């Protein structure tokens, strides 16, 4: 091992300090969430959140898993959505980005604009909902309804496009001269070369599906198709709306959801994605660099 130079030592000191600080700031609230999730309800209401549970209680988790079938089914739905959405979404996103990154494709800016324009103007929720429900019949197809509308995002397309543009043209040109078609260049050359960005976009798409409650909210009536986040969402956000509506209508609407359950659900929902992330991280470290290909 080479000896570290003075500048590297300075850099390391600064780097470790900054990252450690940021990590601590990020992790403290999360510790509070975990701690609150195992605190007795009345203690939270009275004393607020704390880093160490004032009065330990697993009552929240007991309640959530009091209906283990529902939670497990919701997990199943969400895993399905995430997997199918990420695979199809990532592939299509990358393919679109590939075309837009081709410098010899003279219509690339027109198409980029065609896509980008959709992020600026939207007809709003009403026509979108009418289209999805009345014409695409998404309510009848809950599994498709929870995947299809979020398959592609212009943001992701443009990020991958930008990455692919930075890959030297010489690589794909060589393949083209060898007679490779566009799709083959895309699949066999550009996809492997883009691993780092694909890993991040895969993560983004997965997180998007994992955290989505909106599509369930809009299109799913039957509890057995509820996604995990929707299952949790109904409890998480209800408190405030309940209070408001209860007084608007003058009707008593029952007990508010419990604080510790809110927290426990946040823990449950984020858990798996934290497990997926380290797995994807290897692409950031080991990802094929261009140098390696050229070499």
């Amino acid at each position, binding site marked *: 091992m080479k000896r570290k130079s003075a500048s590297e030592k300075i850099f390391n000191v600064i780097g470790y300090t900054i990252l450690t600080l940021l990590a601590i700031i990020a992790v403290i609230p999360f510790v509070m969430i975990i701690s609150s999730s195992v605190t007795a309800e*009345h203690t939270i209401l009275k004393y607020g959140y704390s880093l160490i549970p004032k009065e330990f209680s697993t009552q929240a988790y007991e309640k959530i898993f009091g209906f283990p079938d529902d939670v497990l089914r919701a997990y199943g739905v969400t895993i399905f959505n995430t997997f199918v959405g990420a695979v199809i979404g990532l592939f299509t996103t990358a393919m679109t980005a590939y075309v837009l990154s081709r410098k010899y494709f003279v219509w690339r800016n027109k198409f980029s604009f065609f896509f980008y324009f959709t992020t600026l103007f939207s007809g709003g*929720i009403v026509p979108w909902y009418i289209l999805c429900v009345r014409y695409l019949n998404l309510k009848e197809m809950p599994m498709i309804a929870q995947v299809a509308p979020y398959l592609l995002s212009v943001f992701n397309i443009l990020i991958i496009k930008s990455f692919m543009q930075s890959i030297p043209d010489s690589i794909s040109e060589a393949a083209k001269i060898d007679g490779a078609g566009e799709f083959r260049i895309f699949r066999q050359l550009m996809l492997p070369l883009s691993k780092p960005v694909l890993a991040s976009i895969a993560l983004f798409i997965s997180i998007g599906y994992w955290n989505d409650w909106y599509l369930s*909210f809009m299109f799913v009536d039957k509890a057995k198709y509820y996604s995990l986040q929707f299952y949790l969402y109904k409890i998480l956000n209800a408190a405030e709306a*309940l209070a*408001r509506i209860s007084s608007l*209508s003058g009707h*008593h609407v029952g007990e508010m959801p419990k604080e510790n359950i809110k927290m426990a659900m946040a823990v449950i929902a984020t858990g798996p994605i934290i497990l997926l992330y380290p797995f994807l991280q290897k692409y950031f470290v080991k990802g094929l660099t261009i140098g390696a290909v050229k070499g």
Partner: protein
Amino acid sequence: MKHVSRKLCVIMAIMLIAVMPLSACKNSTNTDDTSGLTSNEAKGDSNTENNDTESDDGTTVDPIQEELAKGHVTLIGYQFGDNSVDHEAVLAKLNEKLEADINTTIEIRGIPWTDAETKYKLMFASGEEFDFCYSGAWIGFNSVATTNGYKSIDLDMVKTFAPDTYAATSADRWKQVTVKGNIYGLPNINAKIKNVLAVFRGDILDKYNITSISSPDEFVNALLKIAAGEDELLAWNVGNAEQNGRMRGTLYSQAKNLKDVISGVPLLSVDMLDDSYKIFKVYEDPDYLKYLETTKKLADAGVWSKSALANSDADENNFMAEKSACYIADAFDTFSRNDATMKALNPSYANRYFEVNPGYKKIPEGGNMSMLSINANSKYAERVMMMFNLFETDKSYFDLINYGIEGTHYEAVGETRYNALLPKYNDFGGFTISWGSNNSSLLRQNTTVPQEQIDAYNKSLAEDSIETPLATFTFDDTNYKNEIAAITNIVETYMIPIELGLTDQAEGLEKMKQKLETAGIDKLLEAVQTQLDAYIAEYNGNN
């Protein structure tokens, strides 16, 4: 460059082609819709059919029997909120009864509270197929009605298919759910009379030797005493708009018997006892300024938190979590629903109820506050009415949807009381669908409420309720939506902080007045006054 426009043309053309069938579909569904919507016509048709069968047979056929003969029907209904305790079991029991009585079962779907208003309207916008839903002025009844989301209801049909309801519902109630000449909801038979009470923790009151509270001054003094003596506990938790509204009611409007003329805009009020029905701006009333002084005093004494505005917790929750000593509750719901639960969860509280403004005039809630409405595209209006009839007038149904299964959830005590079983587990919120078919004469009260309390409550209702055209007046805001939106915003931005005494009140009031004037408060006032005058004239003419 010209290439581009060519290509754009191609894209546009493709889009147009894609859109055309859409709009064509749209047209065809539209015509369907309208034929369903002008349901007088549609109704007329089915009536003639009925008459035909009658004349063919030469005998009179009972239309209910005839309807039942059409076979089994599953009605789809929407309610708000998540399922109540033991929803499945109660629903199963309910369906068993419905099946036996009217050959019908119901499927209940819920709209989560969050975004309830958006989703509610989207249901109609998308032309979703369902039969009935809860509706109420506070959840956009008027706008759904004026935009033709509900089926208009034919009274003859109600008479036929919901005879008990028809007999028990006064003509006024129907008038209250009429929008632009059509009836769009099945109203509660008996108006609920809103009567707010201050709920105090008895143990805290004892600590400060407070025995009775029967005027705003005594209420304020009690709060001040508690605030001065208690360190951990707030005397009263106010903060968001609704809690603020209850505070305004208790400390200002009730004593003067005022009523807001536009719901959601607490700026324009009218004296219920004044026959001239002159609307005035509250912030120009000297008593309102006195009220502000009071709240300032309370705020300075720390009766509520300095950060009250950022606290979104419901006051009832704060009370239950030992964070505050008092809250304002609706007696109707507290006595009949959650009193037992509250007492079971916090036995040491020894809750006491006080009417802060004894003798203030109460008006029955308008029929349009809580209803069941029938979806414009429902094919089973008859069955919905038959179901509604049972819900609202048959005590066995009423008990089931409000209190659950006898023996499991409650135990009937006589005709008007019940014992809550498992009160910690079940707070008797009821099916929210039951709100739409409420009937206060069938209501039961918790046995945990002392008889004196109920007597006092009933007495105050009997003596102090008044009849007034104001109860049923609704402002038609079609042409004033912009003003109302701007003014709602100003209320939230300026009025609430001023009333909570957390800002410089004089300065805030001045700024609010200015903003209100530019937003068109005077124009709005004039419009409401004109509509109200016309309404009063019509009302007086009719009665």
